[in-house]
């Protein structure tokens, strides 16, 4: 999925909760509709959102590359393994009319799903995504889900991933300078070669965790209780309109399913 793309747009400015809910609704809608008209509606909806986001389309497609294999496998399986009215037969393989229909549908659903969720990650910073999730999941607190803690862990992870990646690179180079070989050999040999990389990396991660915990305590951190927010999430007019648009779209999809 795409990394945050910095620009000014209506979509960028929306509350992260709206975008999260919209993404979930959009994914559900893809499985609700089962007619071509429905897919056209979904495609139009997605296209308008992409246009509004001002993110170049090629960034959406970037996310597709990762799932191209899964997409191919799904299509191939559906194409050949669905029983029904034969369309083309060659050698031992038969493509049925139903198979073709399901394969195309699956391909469309999957690509829409990826592009749709990429749109969310491209227009929302990881930070406000975590904030949005924390706020959305807040009711779960009453069933003893540590919502604040999970959100805090996620944002710390996001902060430290680049640091640890850099560290991995450094340790790797240091061990190569000591003659380590991370490339050649069979699988077992390669796994063994990782020890000089992983041990220092874990030690460093623990040391950092320890330091960070101390620094957080020194700055009066004591969990989610009593905390105020520097950037509290607040719905604005645009967010309400967005929810309305979403509602119209989603009921449209449901109506199509029922009446068409």
């Amino acid at each position, binding site marked *: 999925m795409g990394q945050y793309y910095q620009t000014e747009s209506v979509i960028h400015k929306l509350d992260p909760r709206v975008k999260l809910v919209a993404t979930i609704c959009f994914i559900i809608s893809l499985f609700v509709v089962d007619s071509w008209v429905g897919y056209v509606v979904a495609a139009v909806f997605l296209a308008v959102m992409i246009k509004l986001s001002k993110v170049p389309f090629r960034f959406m497609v970037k996310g597709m590359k990762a799932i191209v294999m899964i997409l191919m496998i799904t299509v191939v399986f559906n194409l050949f393994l669905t029983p029904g009215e034969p369309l083309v037969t060659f050698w031992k393989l038969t493509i049925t009319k139903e198979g073709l229909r399901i394969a195309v549908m699956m391909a469309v659903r999957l690509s829409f799903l990826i592009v749709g969720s990429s749109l969310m990650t491209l227009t929302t*910073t*990881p*930070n406000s995504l975590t904030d949005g999730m924390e706020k959305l999941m807040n009711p779960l607190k009453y069933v003893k889900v540590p919502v604040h803690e999970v959100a805090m862990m996620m*944002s*710390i992870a*996001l*902060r430290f991933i*680049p*640091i640890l990646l850099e560290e991995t690179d450094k340790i790797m180079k240091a061990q190569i300078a000591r003659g380590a070989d991370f490339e050649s050999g069979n699988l077992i040999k390669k796994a063994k070669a990782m020890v000089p990389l992983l041990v220092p990396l874990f030690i460093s991660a623990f*040391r*950092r965790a320890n*330091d*960070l915990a*101390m*620094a*957080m*305590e*020194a*700055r*009066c*951190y*004591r969990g989610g209780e*009593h*905390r*105020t*927010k*520097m*950037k*509290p999430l607040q719905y604005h007019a645009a967010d309400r309109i967005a929810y309305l648009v979403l509602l119209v779209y989603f009921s449209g999809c449901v109506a199509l399913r029922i009446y068409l």
Partner: protein
Amino acid sequence: MGIIKTDKLTFEYIRRDEEGNVEGINRAVDEVDLDVKQGEFIAILGHNGSGKSTLAKHINAILYPTEGTVWVDGMDTQDEKHLWDVRREAGMVFQNPDNQIIGQVVEEDVGFGPENMGVPTKEIWERVEESLKAVGMYEYRKHSPNKLSGGQKQRVSIAGVIAMHPKCIILDEPTAMLDPNGRKEVIRAVRALNDVEGITVVLITHYMEEIIHADMVCVMDQGQIAMEGTPREIFSRVEELQELRLDVPQVTLLAYELKQRGVNLPDGILTIEELVAALTGLKGA
């Protein structure tokens, strides 16, 4: 009573061998008496393992004394009901700039402390702005900390502490991992805090040139305060410093060597200007 006071502060920890048997007891801090007045700039010197960092962690109630007492603004740090007040009044900046920044954006990190204290949103923004301006990092408020230099990261950490409106700030070797430019940036910011905002500063370091502007210097060795006095007093005791394996600024060392060779110079020369003036004075006389 001063803002920070310790009475016979002692901290011991138990050393264990691989099987977990007690090998011995280490006294990291040994009966230290300290009294820091509001608005002072105190430097604590000493090499690694001298107990200076352990001492610092007591002031912020990260560690508790084995024996003796620590008071911050009259509050005993071991008194549980004052724990968060102690931590708010005595802010702490650590050595590694990467491991103390929590936010993914500079301004969010500075807001972290006030958020924890339950400060209202509007006031958090005011505090973040004034703190970032105080350390000269306001223009970087929207940046990711990962893209900053070491000195800039430490200044963000300092801003994060100031935003909590502490009465004193303890800096535990804030410059040890920085290059010379970063070191200068950080020390400049710290001095400004002390001069302009009147915040009490306890600076722990092993760089001698950073303590020249302190009101008082304590040199620690083996958990005890080995030397105590103004920078000038400390620097006039070159032999003792060398025995403790601490650096002496080149200008002080040069003056000392010249004196040893019979040149009539005053004790504890701290700056190039002082030395040059003294030498040219001799020449003229």
